[in-house]
């Protein structure tokens, strides 16, 4: 029997509502101090209907108003490429694009984004056809554990359209909102510079 990859297991669990008992209709619970999901305390009466457009696809959802864009993307829509690091806007792991600009999905409510075009790492490229930035991260070995990588790549792709000087220092400054605990910074800067030089 083919072993399930961790990502496949998580996606199946989320889509079937299994494994962790999280309903697919929207996460309505709170988070404990340690950050794990706890079961909903509400009866769903306060849920709000919203349509979110993510990676070109409309999702009609009912959400507890407290649901951050990050939790909605990961737990309701089951796109697990966007990472939760600090959940307080300090690490950048949750970076996604809203209307083409990079933002932190942990510091936004999902309800704020009806009508907006949201792009996550899943909307950037495919394993068969990587986005040039994904390919450069691969070529330059711009990661170690990989946890921050989707946020780094989303940030780097958005950086390409922002005012940024040509040197490494300018790239470092504009990438300072993405923390890498492994310390792959030198290769991350190299990957970004490789894409910029080819653009």
């Amino acid at each position, binding site marked *: 029997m083919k072993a399930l990859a961790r990502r496949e297991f998580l996606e199946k669990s989320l889509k079937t509502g299994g494994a962790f008992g999280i309903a697919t209709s929207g996460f309505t619970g709170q988070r404990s101090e340690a950050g794990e999901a706890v079961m909903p305390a509400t009866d769903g009466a*306060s849920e709000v209907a919203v349509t979110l457009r993510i990676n070109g696809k409309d999702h009609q959802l009912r959400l507890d*108003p*407290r649901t951050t864009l990050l939790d909605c993307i990961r737990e309701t829509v089951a796109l697990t490429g966007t990472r939760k690091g600090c959940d307080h806007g300090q690490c*950048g792991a949750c*970076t996604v694009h809203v209307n083409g600009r990079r933002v*932190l999905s942990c510091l936004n*409510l999902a309800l*704020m984004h009806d009508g907006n075009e949201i792009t996550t790492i899943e909307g950037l490229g495919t394993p068969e056809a990587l986005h040039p930035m994904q390919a450069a991260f691969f070529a330059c070995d711009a990661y170690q554990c990989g946890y921050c990588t989707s946020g780094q790549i989303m940030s780097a792709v958005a950086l390409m359209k922002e005012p940024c000087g040509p040197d490494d220092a300018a790239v470092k400054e504009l990438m300072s*909102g993405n923390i890498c605990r492994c310390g792959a910074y030198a290769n991350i800067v190299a990957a970004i510079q490789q894409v910029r030089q080819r653009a």
Partner: protein
Amino acid sequence: MHNFEFIRPPDLATTITAAAQSKTAQQGADVRFMAGGTTLIDLMKLNVETPARVIDINRLPLDKIEATSDGGLKIGATVRNSDLAHHPTVRRDYSALSQAILDGASAQIRNMATIAGNLLQRTRCVYFRDTAMPCNKREPGTGCPAITGSNRTLAILGTSEHCIATNPSDMCVAMAALEATIHVQGPKSSRAVPFGEFHLLPGNTPQRETVLEPGDLVMHVTLPPPVAGSRQVYLKLRDRASYEFALASAAVVITVSGGKVTRARVALGGVGTKPWRSPEAEAVLTGRPANDANFRKAAEAALRDAKPQSENGFKIELAKRCLTHALRTALTS
């Protein structure tokens, strides 16, 4: 996070009426406007802010940057920090403001955070952010553990025995030196608040940080016309090179003619309980030769009333050198 009702009124009038039902517009408000969310959602996750109702103002027509008839600039409340910093007029005529914004937060947060939100940015004092600790700003009367505790990053100017929390904004420091005006629409009338009168000293009511009352909505900020021949600098000193709050910062706008300073506007960040304009430094500078000795005298004047805490005495000399260097840089830029 406590539960709340999320509403998005269709227009300004309904927005203001809804907010006017709040008991306060200050710490602990039961109705909160939400724009970028970068401060408020963070504090709601920590249960430092627990509004029963959140009003989304992102779709209101408050997102324009426009020239004013007198040659100044009008900046809408929900203009994003990055859009203001990169605006060609701001880069050319208000470079200290552009630099201050770009020295703050990260690229992602600058894309989200709004101008009004930055005006209302809350302190990073660790005791304020931790509901397990006493804090006079969060829970009046419970005490200030920062005074005997961890206070390395906290304020040395404008403190009281009840609160020593630093105002963390960079943008506000530049706006103080540029003499911005904040335009507020309330339930009954509108008013224009000079920048220096918008933020309040903690005194014995540290929970009150601004002059805003329930239903007051910051509509826009105006900047006066740029002063011909003036030179501007924003200099920020911090523990790491990027994505860190200031230990000390200085915004200077000076005009020099015939080797003498003819006009000076000076504000400090990272050291005050509010964005710290220094009329004392301005008075020392004005009419005197623009040289290092007078810059240092101005810095001495700006920090004359500084009160160090157990861990932040270093900020006095740091702020003096920061201001002196900012003035020197402005002169030679």
